[in-house]
């Protein structure tokens, strides 16, 4: 029962052992102190460093959003000037995208979970991992400096020629900061790919790889292929301001549409950097809380890669009205529709996983279900925008704003929060308060829809995006949207309170509070410094084998004297008796 019957798989003797409950020594109790944290190469602590940084940026950009929405309560100027308004939406967008959403799941949660799911002690290059965090910090400092030395009002897309010659502020520094940040993203992607290829524990074949890791893998591929192109684009833009390079600046002879091609060649794939890891989280949560084997494992795994691939071919759908040839428009429109196929495959498989499962409506599961609902709206409206004639009407309206908020916030942020609640017991060793978690989710869900549903309507009625004033007929929609935004703020405050509270006073978490079958739950909560007590675990069951009893899911470790004899027989010794979860 211990190994598969495939002939050329190495046979090992394994000893089973259950994870330690209430561990005394964990990664949190060892290597303590500020200096130890700041210089740590432990993937779990680096995950925390990222998590706290992105939480900070989420807060900053969130406050900016509330300011923007407050200004929009009235059709004319309420309390900030038009120029300030432009700066605020630029910063809101740029910070949310580059400093929060892109690193959110991969660098924060992924860093923590990936080695645990692979059964290794750390990522392949721990020092590079720390370096990538500091590159992120450096990028952040540069961007913050740019904000305080003039700001930027180009929008997060930095379109030329406005950004290359007309706009004031400190664009050079801003684009340079984002350029630096890109390298952090590249290094994380590189690290993850190598780790997944080279560091899987024995028994963890590609067809047992948890779907979260498939998601991270696809994301990493996009990160290493697309981010360098953004880097060179922003470098060119920086040089445009610094040396007057002029490749994108029509005043000197350059071509501004070329900039848009370059930018979207990165940024459309980047929107998948911002969603595919979320898909991975949803797969994990849905099977765990449906107590059922994931439906269509390969379909889900490969559709992530398919999305990553097609995502590289659709950038032109952002430029339908930018003077592209109509042939190009048609091709890009068609390719955009294709993205819907792998995305749909995923949704169907998730729903099929839930079908006839025994669904447990814990907070992470509720997040996953909200995700399904909101992401579908986001995805479908994306298809509509991909239709040429429709897009000409809707381009640069609030409809687009609503579309990408449904995918980025309703999709990715909800998936991220689902993952955070799902892995919180593992990361902190503490349980949060279910009741308040559900209340806050309810508020977020209502607040989110209240904020963004009206935007679809006003967008289709012609309300353009990035405007500081508007016609009076839109006021009702704008006010609904602003009240929704305040509600979102309340939801997040509640969340911050109960999460912090749980860190100090939460109930001690069991090693596997959700009864999940995947490997990270076979380590204690919180895990020891080297994840699996200095041993390399042997993976015997698939991480979605819910048809097997929980008692079989103890970690196997190779007994010390074997591993070199190919012909050695497998006699798994029964582990110490222990109570099973189920």
């Amino acid at each position, binding site marked *: 029962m211990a190994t598969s019957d495939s002939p050329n798989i*190495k046979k*090992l003797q394994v000893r089973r052992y259950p994870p330690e409950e209430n561990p005394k020594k964990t990664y949190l109790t060892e290597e303590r102190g500020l200096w130890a944290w700041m210089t740590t190469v432990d993937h779990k602590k680096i995950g925390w460093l990222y998590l706290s940084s992105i939480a900070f940026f989420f807060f900053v950009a969130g406050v900016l959003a509330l300011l923007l929405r407050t200004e929009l309560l009235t059709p004319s100027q309420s309390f900030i000037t038009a120029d300030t308004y432009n700066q605020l939406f630029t910063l809101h967008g740029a910070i949310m995208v580059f400093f929060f959403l892109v690193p959110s799941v991969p660098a924060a949660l992924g860093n923590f979970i990936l080695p645990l799911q692979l059964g*290794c*002690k*750390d990522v*392949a*290059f*721990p020092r*590079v991992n720390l370096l990538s965090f500091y590159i992120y910090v450096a990028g952040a400092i540069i961007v913050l400096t740019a904000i305080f030395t003039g700001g930027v009002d180009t929008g997060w897309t930095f379109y030329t020629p406005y950004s290359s010659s007309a706009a004031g502020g400190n664009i050079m520094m801003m684009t340079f900061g984002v350029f630096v940040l890109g390298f952090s993203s*590249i290094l994380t992607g*590189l*690290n993850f*790919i*190598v*780790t997944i*290829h*080279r*560091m*899987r*524990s*024995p028994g963890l074949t590609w067809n047992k790889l948890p779907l979260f890791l498939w998601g991270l893998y696809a994301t990493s591929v996009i990160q*290493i*292929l*697309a*981010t*360098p*192109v953004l*880097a*060179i*684009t922003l*470098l*060119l833009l920086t*040089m*445009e301001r610094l*040396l*007057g*390079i*002029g*490749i994108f*600046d029509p005043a*000197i*002879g*350059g*071509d501004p549409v*070329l900039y848009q091609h*370059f930018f979207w060649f990165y940024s459309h794939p980047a929107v998948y950097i911002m969603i595919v890891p979320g898909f991975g989280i949803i797969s994990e949560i849905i099977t765990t809380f449906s107590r059922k084997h994931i439906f269509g494992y390969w379909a889900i795994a490969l559709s992530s890669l398919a999305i990553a691939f097609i995502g590289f071919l659709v950038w032109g759908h952002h430029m339908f009205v930018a003077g592209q040839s109509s042939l190009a428009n048609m091709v890009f429109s068609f390719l955009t529709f294709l993205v819907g196929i792998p995305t749909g495959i995923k949704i169907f498989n998730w729903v099929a996983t839930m079908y006839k499962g025994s669904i447990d409506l814990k907070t992470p599961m509720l997040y996953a279900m909200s995700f399904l609902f909101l992401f579908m709206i986001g995805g479908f409206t994306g298809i509509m925008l991909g239709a040429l004639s429709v897009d000409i009407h809707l381009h640069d309206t609030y409809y687009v704003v609503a579309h990408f908020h449904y995918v980025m916030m309703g999709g990715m942020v909800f998936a991220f929060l689902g993952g955070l609640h799902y892995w919180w017991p593992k990361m902190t060793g503490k349980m949060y308060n279910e009741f308040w978690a559900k209340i806050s989710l309810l508020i977020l869900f209502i607040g989110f829809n209240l904020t963004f549903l009206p935007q679809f309507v006003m967008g289709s009625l012609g309300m353009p995006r990035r405007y500081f004033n508007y016609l009076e007929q839109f006021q009702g929609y704008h006010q609904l949207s602003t009240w929704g935004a305040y509600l979102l703020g309340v939801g997040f405050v509640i969340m911050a309170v109960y999460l912090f509270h749980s860190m100090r006073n939460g109930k001690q978490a069991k090693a596997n509070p959700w009864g999940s079958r995947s490997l990270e739950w076979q380590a204690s909560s919180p895990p020891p410094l*080297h994840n699996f007590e200095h041993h*390399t675990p042997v993976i015997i069951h698939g991480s979605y084998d819910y048809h097997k009893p929980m008692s079989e899911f103890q970690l196997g470790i*190779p007994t*010390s*004297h*074997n*591993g*070199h004899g190919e012909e050695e027989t497998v006699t798994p010794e029964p582990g110490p008796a222990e109570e099973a979860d189920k």
Partner: protein
Amino acid sequence: MAQPSLSVKKEKPEHHHFVDADQQFEASKMGVWIFLVTEILFFGGLFAAYIVYRAWYPELFIAASDELDVFWGAVNTVVLISSSLTVAMAIRSVQLNQIKGLIINLWITISLAGVFMVIKYFEYAEKIGKGVLPGAHYTYDGVDHEKANIFFSIYYMMTGLHGIHVLVGISLMLWLVWKAKKGHFSSKYYNPVEGTGLYWHLVDIIWIFLFPLLYLID
């Protein structure tokens, strides 16, 4: 292959989180290869800009490329190709555990890279002297084309970025020499040498593309 071996007889890895030295070697090699892919895409953006502008203004490229000095470009190509050879010899030396050979070969490579940069410096100085500057600052009137400045923008971006890569390569190799002198490398552990070698080949290959694309068109 991808599965780490559990054998206790394996070489101990340099860093504790690897199961054994083989795994570490494979991992670092793969890491370098992926890094090189990102480098190619990074330069790829510039090549794309080159292709677009060349397709739009073919006559501009032919005229402006006359301003570049084919002789010194060719010399630099030879210099870089030789340095690729010497860096390969450096790797060979360390594989044979000949640390002295490693250090000598690294020094030769560093010097060749230095020669490349010196020649590049004179090329730049000569152009800047006549007012061949990128984009907005272009004042030279020897090329009869209104977009001549854009050609030189692309020229400076491509060769400048490549030059920065050469400088990075020089620093990496100086660091290797320093490590090698401290006895860090042996035939059992030389991942950084191998990685730097791969990087250096890439820098070389990029130049092999830049040279004909910029200097040899007409």
